[in-house]
């Protein structure tokens, strides 16, 4: 019984120690986990944070991530929104530093336009094909 307890404690200790060893122990930035007092501003900040990529954990948004750097980014986003800055200006500021990669909101650029055009072309092609087929059927 005590042996199992020891093992369990060791496992728990291992789990607790692993991630801590590679992260800092500083308290989170002021607005990392604190919402803005004004609900309208907080909603604006939240909408923006959900479309910004966490750079440490690249498949998560900064709204989803508990990485300290994501917390620092959230805090900065909230403080800037509170200071009256527009969400798109904050996004542009980050894109200027990290490139399009930091934003989850798709943009039409010289590189990405086929992604928007190809589905439309395919739909039009399919519609044309189907129309020809149905017209054939009617003739019989």
């Amino acid at each position, binding site marked *: 019984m005590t042996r199992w307890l020891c093992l369990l404690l060791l496992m728990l200790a291992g789990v607790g120690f692993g991630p801590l060893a*590679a*992260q*800092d*122990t*500083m308290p989170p*930035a*002021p607005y990392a986990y604190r919402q803005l007092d004004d609900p309208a501003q907080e909603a604006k900040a939240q909408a923006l944070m959900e479309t910004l990529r966490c*750079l*440490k954990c*690249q498949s998560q948004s900064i709204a989803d991530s508990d990485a*300290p*750097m994501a917390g*620092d*980014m959230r*805090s*900065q986003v909230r403080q800037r929104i509170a200071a009256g800055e527009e969400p798109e200006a904050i996004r542009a500021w*980050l*894109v*200027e*530093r*990290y*490139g399009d*990669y*930091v934003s989850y909101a798709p943009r039409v650029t010289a590189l990405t336009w086929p992604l928007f055009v190809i589905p439309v072309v395919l739909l039009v092609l399919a519609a044309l094909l189907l129309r020809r087929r149905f017209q*054939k059927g009617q*003739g*019989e």
Partner: protein
Amino acid sequence: MSETPKPAPRWAIWLPLGLFLGFVALVLIGLLRPADREVASAMIGKPLPQFDLPAAIPEKPGLAHNDFAAGGKPRLLNVFASWCIPCAVESPQLDQLAKMGVEINGIAIRDHREDVAAFLARNGNPFTRIGADDVSKVQLAMGSSGVPETFVIDGKGVIRYQHIGEIRADQLPLILEKLKEAEQ
């Protein structure tokens, strides 16, 4: 209509298989080619952002963007933290660069003052100035996404090169070359 529909050409029966094999090839390429997960800063070629960081340890002054505009030789700006293991791995290389006469400034990310002091006592202190960035503010302003990263800053305060990850011993010539390039 009286005419019967034309039978599909014979090769057409291979089309689905061909499409499938093409898809498999695409998946295999995606699986086997190691993806590049590094996020390069888009600030290369641009001046340093404005900042003014307090000193991370009492023995060395803090760091502000004005310190770089003073002219002079290109220098290294090393973004590090005491809690970052690769940062300890690169310290012999930084020491070597400092001994060669390269000025190295540091920014300690999210770090307690006493931890920075202990880290430097353990690994040596190649820095002439160390700023403390407690909420990654300067790091974000520079487009840096982790520790360690090392930037080459020229005499006018323009960011010329970003080295992501620790500087390994075999990368010293590369860093020296980038410093030389920044002199022009």
